[in-house]
Structures are given as structure tokens and as C-alpha cells.
């Protein structure tokens, strides 16, 4: 008798839930050793509702079709010298930031989801996380391939993976994911699956992908479209995790709230680089960071937290601080990179007069008062032939690892500084949010690998900063870094375009 073809429902059951088995002679707790130490109580894994119904065979088929289309477009982009269609050479620096700061996070997400996809006791959650882990691996690959074309024509792309592990500002995204991956599996899911993929993801991908579309970068736009349907699946998984944890046991509610508070704060700190990219690095602007925050967090996130109120979940702590900071952080971050342009792996510049006016219009309450004077000073210095590169190395926050560049919202002229003493040693923080995170688990954050301190300890080569940049970070000093004015990138661009 010929084998009957399985119907969709049976196939789904056999290829997902039916992959589980009972433990008859081994201790189940030993098979899933990570499941209890965080204090989360799971009473019944069967209550897990699969956020998307996809079997592995249809997953392969579907993804393979997307890959075929994507790589056909990459080939065409490359054959037609697609890099010449971007608006100008400044734009490409946003891609350098993406490749060094964001793409390696996709790889870390792949590792993190593969880990929890093994460690959860429930098979439905395991299968969903395993599929997301494959998506993340695909994303890092397609991003690298999308940008490899730019690597042939622009500086600063060549050592992205090495740089991610070492460069001072890249310790910010890197440590964000290291924090999540070294937490337990449930915290990882609230951190990455929910807080990042669900609540904040639109603030990362929409700016970069719309930024690409507005600035003539077809390769990145195409990658973005190819990832979009995966991202939609990731968001449903993030939401299912939250609902499941909150419905399993009331004792889970305060733990989940604490993680939401923590990861919302860490996530918004991480998004500071996106804020700066939108307001300063895109020659053709999409919208201001302030507007993006209002649309994607205050409106969309506000509605989400209204829905979660029935579980006893409230808005993340310090949301009102972030609401004020949306007027400031992009300016503070770009000033930091501009003044550290000698130590960045991409080029920086003074905004054009037209851009300064755009910033004034977008930020009527803060830009002219606090930030335009910075650029006037920078212009004055540049005119004197003393383009301002700051001396020395900045103080870093022990938690987010960002230089302590944020200011007090009741006095935006003054940097915000907090500290804690733990076992006779002092630790410094950029904010109450970062201090709270440390105070909750100091034993974790005493291990922060702070690039400035590591340089002073002699662990990054040296002795001079230039040696650290060239030998330890593998930057081409004088080529990858410094102002865009006079850079090889700019020079080549002008030759291609016939600009005198």
C-alpha cells in the first residue's frame, strides 16, 4: 500500500510537538537545568500557544525562495555599480555603523535563541526559538552579503567582526547582548524576544531600512524586505512569551516587570546610536528621532502597555525620563562621535547649514538653546585649522558602557552622574536606570569589560591611543577614521561623480 500523504494538521503535530518525549529513567530537571533558578514558575507547558504554525520543511522552502530573489538583486546591484546611486559618501557611514554595531547582534541573537531553544522545558517554545535562531543566522549572513559590495569601494567595513569585539563604542551593543545571553532563558526572552524584538524593533529597523530607501541604497532596502516576514514572526513569539509567563503564575508578574524595566532602559540606551544616525548621518532625513520615538514608542508602546495592564504590568520605569531625553540624545551622541572622530571606525562631520536649520525646526525646544552653539564652536575651530578632536579618554557607564554623555533633564547643561559603592569599590552610572540595574545584580556588572579601563590596564596594546586603534582595533588610522572632509572615501566619491 502506498504511503498516504499527511494532512497539514498531522504534519504540523508530528514535526513540532511530537518531537518531545517523556523522561522515564532520567531526571527531567537535569535535562532542563536552567528552568528554575530565575524564580519563574511554570505550571503547565501545554498552555503554550504556538505563535506561528510553521513546520521545518515549509520553513526551508519559504526561506529558500526568499534567498533566491534576494541574491539575484544583490548580483544586479553589484553588476550595475549600485553604490554609485547612494546620495553621497556620507550616507555609507551609517552602513559602517550598522555592520559593526548591529549585524554582529544578529549573530549573538542566533546563539541566544539556539541556547534557549534547547533549554526550555516546553517543546512548543523550543521549536519556535530554534526557528528564530535560524532566522537570525540568515540575517547576519544576508547583511554581510548586502554590505560586501560597499566594502569594495569604501573604507571601514573590512574588520567589522573583529571590531565588534574590541572597539570602545561597540562594547555598547556587544555588552547588551552578552548581558541577555548570560541571563537565564526566561530573562533572555523578555530581554530580546519581547523588549527588543517586540517593543523597540521598529525603532531600529524602520530607521535603517527607510533611511536606505530615502538615500538610494537598494541593497539594504532589499535585505530589509527579505527580513520583514521573519521579524513579524519574532514579534508574535515575543508577545506569546510575555502572555504565557504572566498567565502561568501570579508570582511571575513582579519578575517580568523587573525585566521589562531593565531591558526597556538598556534598549533605549542602545538605540542612542540609531537616534544619532537618523538625525545626523542620513543625508536625506526620514523623520527626526523625536518623531520616531513618539510614533513607535509613545503611541504603539503606550497601547501595548494598556493591554498588558490587565496582567498587572505597568509602563516601564523611567519611561517619563526617556520622553524628555528624546529631545537631547541624538545631539549628544553625534557630538561625542564628532569629537572622538579620531577614534571612530567611520567618518564624522559638522552638519551643513541646511541640516542645522532642519534640526532647529525638528527640536524647537532644545536645539538652538543647547546644541547649535556646539556646532558654532566646531565651525570656528575648523576655520582656524584646528578641527576639534578631544584629548584623553571619557568616563564610561558601568552598565550600558556608553561614555557618560547624557545630561540631567532638569539641567541639560550638566552631565548626569550616579554612583554606587559595592564591596569597597566605586562604580559609576549615566542614569538612575543604569544604576538600578547594577544595584540589582552587582556581582554581574563588576565584570564589565570597560574599554577605557582596559586600555589603561595595558590589555589593548599601546602605549598610545593610535597604537590601540591600529594594532588592537585593526583600524586603518588616517583612512577609516577622522573627518569626512579630505578622507579617501570623499576623494574617491568626488572622482567617480566628477565633482571638482
Amino acid at each position, binding site marked *: 500500500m502506498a504511503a498516504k500523504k499527511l494532512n497539514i494538521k498531522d504534519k504540523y503535530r508530528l514535526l513540532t510537538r511530537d518531537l518531545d518525549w517523556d523522561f522515564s529513567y532520567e531526571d527531567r530537571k537535569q535535562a532542563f*537545568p*536552567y528552568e528554575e*533558578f*530565575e*524564580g519563574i514558575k511554570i505550571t503547565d507547558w501545554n498552555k503554550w500557544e504556538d505563535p506561528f504554525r510553521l513546520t521545518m520543511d515549509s520553513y526551508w522552502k519559504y526561506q529558500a525562495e526568499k534567498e533566491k530573489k534576494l541574491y539575484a538583486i544583490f548580483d544586479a546591484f553589484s553588476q550595475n555599480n549600485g553604490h554609485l546611486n547612494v546620495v553621497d559618501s556620507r550616507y555609507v557611514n551609517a552602513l559602517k555603523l550598522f555592520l559593526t554595531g548591529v549585524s554582529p547582534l544578529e549573530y549573538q541573537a542566533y546563539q541566544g535563541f539556539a541556547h534557549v531553544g534547547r533549554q526550555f522545558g516546553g517543546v512548543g517554545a523550543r521549536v519556535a526559538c530554534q526557528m528564530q535562531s535560524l532566522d537570525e543566522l540568515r540575517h547576519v549572513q544576508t547583511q554581510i552579503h548586502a554590505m560586501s559590495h560597499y566594502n569594495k569601494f569604501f573604507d571601514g567595513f573590512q574588520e567589522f567582526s573583529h571590531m565588534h569585539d574590541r572597539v570602545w563604542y561597540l562594547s555598547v551593543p556587544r555588552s547588551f547582548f552578552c548581558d541577555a545571553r548570560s*541571563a*537565564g532563558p526566561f*530573562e533572555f526572552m523578555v530581554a530580546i524576544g519581547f523588549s527588543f524584538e517586540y517593543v523597540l524593533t521598529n525603532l531600529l529597523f524602520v530607521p535603517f531600512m527607510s533611511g536606505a530607501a530615502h538615500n538610494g541604497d537598494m541593497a539594504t532596502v532589499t535585505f530589509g524586505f527579505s527580513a520583514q516576514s521573519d521579524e513579524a514572526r519574532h514579534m508574535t513569539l515575543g508577545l506569546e512569551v510575555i502572555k504565557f509567563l504572566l498567565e502561568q503564575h501570579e508570582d511571575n508578574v513582579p519578575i517580568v516587570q523587573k525585566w521589562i524595566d531593565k531591558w526597556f532602559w538598556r534598549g533605549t540606551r542602545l538605540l542612542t546610536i540609531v537616534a544619532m544616525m537618523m538625525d545626523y548621518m542620513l543625508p536625506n532625513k526620514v523623520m527626526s528621532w523625536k518623531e520616531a520615538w513618539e510614533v513607535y514608542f509613545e503611541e504603539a508602546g503606550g497601547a501595548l502597555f494598556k493591554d498588558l495592564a490587565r496582567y498587572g504590568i505597568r509602563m516601564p520605569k523611567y519611561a517619563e525620563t526617556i520622553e524628555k531625553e528624546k529631545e537631547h540624545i541624538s545631539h*549628544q551622541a553625534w*557630538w*561625542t562621535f564628532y*569629537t*572622538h572622530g579620531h577614534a571612530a571606525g567611520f567618518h564624522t562631520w559638522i552638519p551643513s547649514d541646511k541640516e542645522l536649520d532642519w534640526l532647529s525646526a525638528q527640536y524647537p525646544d532644545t536645539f538652538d*538653546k*543647547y546644541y547649535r*552653539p*556646539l556646532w*558654532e*564652536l566646531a565651525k570656528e575651530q575648523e576655520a582656524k585649522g584646528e578641527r*576639534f578632536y*578631544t*584629548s*584623553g*579618554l*571619557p*568616563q*564610561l557607564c558601568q552598565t550600558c558602557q556608553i*561614555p*557618560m*554623555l547624557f*545630561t540631567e533633564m532638569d*539641567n*541639560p*547643561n*550638566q*552631565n548626569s*552622574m550616579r*554612583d554606587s559603592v559595592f564591596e569597597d*569599590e*566605586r*562604580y*559609576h552610572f549615566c542614569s538612575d536606570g543604569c544604576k538600578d540595574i547594577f544595584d*540589582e*545584580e*552587582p*556581582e*554581574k*556588572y*563588576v*565584570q*564589565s*569589560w*570597560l574599554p*577605557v*579601563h*582596559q586600555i*589603561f*590596564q*595595558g590589555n589593548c596594546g599601546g602605549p598610545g591611543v593610535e597604537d590601540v586603534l591600529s594594532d588592537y582595533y585593526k583600524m586603518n588610522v588616517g583612512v577609516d577614521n577622522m573627518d569626512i572632509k579630505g578622507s579617501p572615501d570623499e576623494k574617491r566619491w568626488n572622482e567617480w561623480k566628477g565633482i571638482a
Partner: protein
Amino acid sequence: MPVYALNPGYKGERMDRVENFHGNQLVYVGWDEHRMFCAAKAFPLPPSMPFAAVIENIMPEAFGQHPEFSQINWETAEWLLDGEPFKPQLEASLEAQGVGHKSMVRFKTPELQGYQNAGV
């Protein structure tokens, strides 16, 4: 709880113990309401360094690029050490006046409001 860990009694490695700095200690210095410098700066300094040497050698290195730097009156500057009001003793060492490893030294210059009086 100091950490949520799989194994009870988990201890993290302290990455920035003073012993790791080859005889120096880390000191942070910040000039309040002068945002030309995006953040306070970090320096590895010998604990025996007199405060006068901080003013003579470290401050110019940290903040000498500012157009107002030469106008600073160190006599009227107001100081904070780890958040508390502080009067530096110029001849005494850092160690002797409580400037320890990873201490934060901030100063305010009441007569200087920054470039364009904008806190820059």
C-alpha cells in the same frame, strides 16, 4: 540579591581592581556645565600625586582645548569629590585627601558660563 546565577555563591571577577593599574589609581575629572567635552575624563594617576600636580598637569591635558580654559580661576572654583563638597589641599597627595581609586572629581567655575554662555 547580588546576582541571579545557576550556581549558588557565584562571584564575578572584578575587572577594575586598583591592583590592575600598575601602581596607579583611576581618577575621573569633570568640568561642570562645559559640554564641549561630552563626558568627564578618566586618568590613571599615582595615589601619591599632589593635588597641585593635577591642576598643573592633568587639567590642561583634560580641558586645555576649551577657549575659556586660560581664564579659569582655581581659587574660586567649587569642587565636588564623589558628590560631596570638597576643598582640595594643593600640597597633599590624592590619597591623603580621600581621592581614591575611581573617585570622581568635579569642579564648577561660577564666573565662566561656557562658549556663548550656553554651557558649552
